[in-house]
């Protein structure tokens, strides 16, 4: 299963996947890894594959995952303040059958954080994306109704941003 997914994902990124970066990259690593698929140890990181892709490829990856029979477990946002970037993490996992969890990451500049929505592929994403928008202010293009889900409607702040002062 792992190889099948790996093969399916790799052909999505034509340029060679540089596996130079260590398993996870912290904020201080020098060369920013461009798009690619890296296998990470499950015991340590809890996910088998770590995919970094450009924002516009997110929908393509979601369609591949849907075809492979994965389900979308969670969408989370990370605010890398010092690199002035938001990072959106998509967690895909298998329901039953051989276990394989894939983490898909994409980075968007902090000033205009826009990512295409995957809610038409995975309806589960609808609420998760609304929550990421609610806490970080990431705009998901053509999302059915991108309004706040947890915070009151008239809240004008995004609490999980690192520069949020209560």
């Amino acid at each position: 299963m792992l190889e099948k997914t790996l093969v399916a994902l790799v052909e999505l990124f034509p340029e060679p996947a540089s596996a130079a970066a260590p398993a996870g990259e912290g904020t201080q690593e020098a060369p920013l890894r461009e798009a690619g698929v890296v296998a990470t140890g499950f015991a340590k990181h809890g996910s088998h594959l770590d995919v970094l892709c450009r924002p516009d490829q997110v929908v393509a990856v979601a369609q591949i995952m849907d075809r492979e029979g994965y389900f979308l477990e969670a969408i989370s946002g990370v605010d890398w303040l010092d690199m002035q970037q938001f990072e959106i993490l998509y967690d895909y996992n298998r329901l039953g059958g051989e276990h394989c969890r894939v983490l898909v990451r994409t980075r968007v500049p902090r000033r205009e954080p826009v990512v295409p929505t995957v809610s038409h592929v995975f309806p589960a994403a609808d609420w998760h994306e609304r929550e990421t928008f609610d806490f970080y202010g990431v705009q998901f293009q053509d999302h059915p109704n991108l309004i706040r889900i947890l915070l009151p409607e008239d809240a004008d702040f995004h609490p999980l941003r690192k520069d949020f002062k209560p």
Partner: protein
Amino acid sequence: MTVPVHLRQDETFVLNLGPQHPATHGVLRVKLTMDGEYVVKAEPVLGYIHRMHEKMAEEGTFVQFFPNTARMDYLHALAFNHGWALVVEKAAGIEVPERAEYIRVITVELNRIASHLLWWAAFLLDLGGFTPLLYAFDDREKIIDLLERITGSRLTYSYMRFGGVYNDIDDEFIAGTRDFIKRLRGRMPRLYHDLVTHNIILIKRIKDIGLVSAEQCRRYGATGPVARGSGINYDIRKNEPYSVYPEFDFEVPVFNEGDSMARYMVRMHEMEQSMRIIEQALDKLPGGPVMGKAPKVLKPEAGYYYSAVETARGSLGHRLVCDGGKNPYKLKLRSPTFCNLSLFGEVAEGMLLADALAFMGSLDLVIPEIDR
């Protein structure tokens, strides 16, 4: 069997189910557009008990997040403790002694039975039967007393620490657990199954109500008893074995009908399986310390970490991002009921109000876990 009925779109009225409503366990509001008694569109509105646990995680150190974990799903608090302990132990590479792992499994399974008992009581209350609640609470009280003996609190436990558990279990706890299991096994067939499961009124009330297909579960990411009720054999204790679960043999109850009755039977069988796990864990309980060595101030290596734990309601995921500091850089809590509820809107269309509530009861919602 929701009779295929022609819903007149124009003559609908909006009915607010909640936030103060007896059937929503907590403060969930569902905006129902109704045509007579049929639900045309159901849209859950969340956020009435949102406390921003994820920001609290970023403020405090790793250890200081333990009280928060118990406040999200207070019915299965120990599984949330277990999930948080697992992800940080994975990140920081902390060893947990064998005895602590066994104690964790025993207490988590006891807490799962307590959670299922309370779900069963509240589900029957939604359907109008008041007496089963008292019988279920009579049993649940025994578990709560047992867990209070060793953890110190009754509902929101902060019992686990990185590298083990807060304090050891004693023989009185072991004897008490064995008595409890014998007692519940004696009461289960008569008070739970004869009085309720085989009752024709209940069968008519939840059979073929709220049909959820396996494909819907996959697209909405529903896990736990909701998925197992629709034929998906996915239990994290079996599929992604963690802690010492591989050492116990237990089956995962899976029903294919996908209606509320299937979810009901899944949970009833799960109580039985949890009792089997507890008995095996008590038999194989090793000696030794309960607290491994863990550094006072944790600074896990930077990176992306994920741990999934099987709670009574589904797979609870902790997506942790560390930047090498002593606080978690980012913690996303993937709560199972958040995804289970997201399919309510699609399934509840065309249902009667009474069926929609029976369906919501079978989803086993805990609202603070949805809102976090």
